């Protein structure tokens, strides 16, 4: 009896000792595509990392890692140097992440915005940014006088097309006459190109500008031209205090903290996460009072309804540009359709570049 008890105590102590040590060594690595000071995409991921650090978990980051041949080495080095969970925060890291994951089965990997989970230790995650776009569309439809909304788009991937469609549908609901004009800049971050695109759209009569790119240039151009604008990825209010109506904020912090703790405690499992307003991965910056308190109230209500699921960004009837029905009346688009979206809805001008 006494012997057994001693054995029990020793094994518990041993177990605590081992696991305690493992917890102390637990480290999370982050790979960023841009510099942490871009005030957009990478900046927000780094805010998420800081939250993990604040939760008492050691973190490391490597910034400005090119999406070419170097990415695989950086990810591998993080895995090799004792990092237990690694977040790779750009689409271009998809294949390198899966390649390294194969060689390090005990390390967990989380790849942002990708679709390949070739090994059981790779998860993917992204945010339902389109829910935020629905809110922007509602505001844009109400605020525009010229009925032209300017949209600066990066690459014709489903995520971007989804945003354009969600915005257009919401704007049409409150203002059937609106047109969405798009300029494709084929970059995620290029202040020069982005401001040229913003100017071109304003010259074509757009009096509301929004962008699916990461720099603060478009809102600054809008501020100068005296048209409305929206911030992207982080709260850009201080770059265009008069012009910005709100910003879509990517809030990765809760997810990063949750997944880091799960990995530390051994409860991490492979999954494909797609969180939105409900979980807080997509958040809205404070609304500009210049749009009037009635509209602010409307948008706040819409935000609540989107979060609770009462309203869906893609509720039928939805038609494509030629008038064919995409989503029937009374039903909503499922995630599979959203994930592969590659047509514009009615009301968007131009063709998707192929």
């Amino acid at each position, binding site marked *: 009896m006494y012997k057994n008890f001693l054995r029990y105590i020793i094994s518990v102590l041993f177990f605590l000792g081992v696991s305690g040590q493992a917890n102390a060594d637990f480290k999370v690595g982050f790979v960023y595509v841009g510099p942490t000071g871009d005030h957009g995409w990478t900046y927000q991921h780094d805010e998420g990392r800081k939250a993990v650090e604040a939760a008492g978990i050691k973190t490391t*980051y490597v*910034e400005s890692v090119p999406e070419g041949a*170097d990415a695989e080495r950086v990810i591998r080095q993080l895995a090799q140097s004792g990092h237990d969970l690694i977040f790779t925060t750009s689409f271009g890291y998809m294949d390198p992440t899966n390649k390294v994951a194969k060689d390090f089965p005990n390390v967990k990997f989380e790849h942002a915005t990708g679709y390949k989970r070739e090994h059981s230790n790779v998860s993917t995650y992204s945010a339902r940014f389109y829910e935020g776009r629905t809110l922007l569309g509602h505001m844009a439809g109400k605020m525009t006088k010229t009925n032209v909304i300017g949209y600066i788009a990066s690459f*014709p991937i489903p995520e971007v097309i989804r945003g354009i469609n969600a915005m257009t549908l919401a704007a049409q609901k409150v203002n059937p006459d609106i047109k969405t004009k798009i300029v494709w800049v084929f970059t995620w971050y290029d202040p020069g190109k982005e401001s040229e695109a913003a100017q071109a759209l304003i010259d074509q009569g757009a009096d509301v500008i929004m962008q699916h790119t990461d720099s603060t240039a478009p809102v600054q151009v809008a501020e100068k031209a005296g048209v409305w604008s929206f911030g992207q990825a982080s709260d850009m209010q201080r770059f265009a205090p008069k012009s910005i109506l709100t910003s879509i904020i990517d809030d990765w912090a809760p997810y990063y903290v949750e997944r880091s703790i799960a990995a530390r405690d051994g409860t991490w499992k492979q999954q494909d996460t797609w969180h939105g307003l409900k979980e807080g991965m997509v958040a809205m910056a404070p609304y500009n009072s210049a749009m009037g308190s009635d509209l602010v109230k409307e948008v706040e209500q819409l935000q609540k309804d989107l979060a609770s699921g009462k309203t869906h960004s893609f509720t039928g009837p939805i038609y494509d540009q030629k008038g064919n029905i995409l989503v029937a009346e009374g039903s909503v688009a499922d995630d599979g359709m959203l994930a592969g979206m590659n047509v514009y809805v009615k009301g968007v001008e131009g063709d*998707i570049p192929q």
Partner: protein
Amino acid sequence: MIKIEKRNDVSPSIYFLTPILAIFLTLFGGGIIFYVLGFNPLEALKFFFITPISDLYGFSELLVKATPLCLIAIGLSFCFKSNNWNIGAEGQLIFGGIVGGGVALLFYGHDGFYVLPIIILSGAIGGMIFAMIPAVLKTYLNTNEILVSLMLVYVAKLLLDYLVVGPWSNPEGFNFPETRQFSESARMPILFDGLRIHAGIFITLITVFLSWLILYKTYLGFQIKVSGLSLKTAKYAGYKGKAMIIIVFMISGACAGLAGVGEITGPIGQLHRNISPDYGFTAIIVAFLGRLNPLGIIFASLIVALTYLGAETAQIFLQVPKYTGQVFQGMILFFLLGSDYLLFFKIKFLGLKKNEL
């Protein structure tokens, strides 16, 4: 008064030792920078220059990184030795990658030993043709090759952008700006299981050997050297200047094209917008650090490759900003050019003389 005088005889041994001096000065300067940033300089330098190559994987990565740098720099040495300033190796690399990648996509799903050689050859030809543009314009229209070759870099980059976004993008890739992964038959053979070092290193070594042969053992090499030292002498000797300009650009472009094709068939395996982290520009530093000498360029490419790897490890272990790698590359060039100046000129401190006042 200070007077600067040209030195008449520079000893060759010192000429080849100054790059090593420049590297030591860079280490010293780097140590000071780390100290000012609040890091232990010795520890930081260890993470920067020793940790990255302390295991087999790291050493293989060093060679993976040095392979394209060495190849491009060797090509550039032909141009630079003959006073032709080809600044656009980056564009030639990308264009070589485009042509090679296009052929690889054409052979998608084909098996056969002949696939890879065809891709490699077409990449080299692509780079060669792209480099001929500034050469032909220079010889026949007297344009400035620095400007033309530099501007063509952007042409190549935009062309690559267009192709991977549009016509060549992966049909199953949700419109993401990248092509399919090439078939196995279009990939450089990996030399060791688990390491990324690939057969491209043999192409580089063969090119280095051939370059040495051409530069030091042939009449063409002699012509290149003489034109570099004095264009007038070359003309007086009756060398065909125009043909030579085009030939050195072709060699240089072919090397850059080979580097591009080596990257896309080696570690990358597809075409996308970031096939080169500015190898074509960094190779200019490598060429000069290596004194435009084949053997020197091999060592220089290893050193410069190490600054890339070091910047990554130093950031992972110490969270040193990653841009210190570029600072190190800049310092190497600065110290090299600085010591070169002192090598070729001497500074005389003269007292003030009455008749000068």
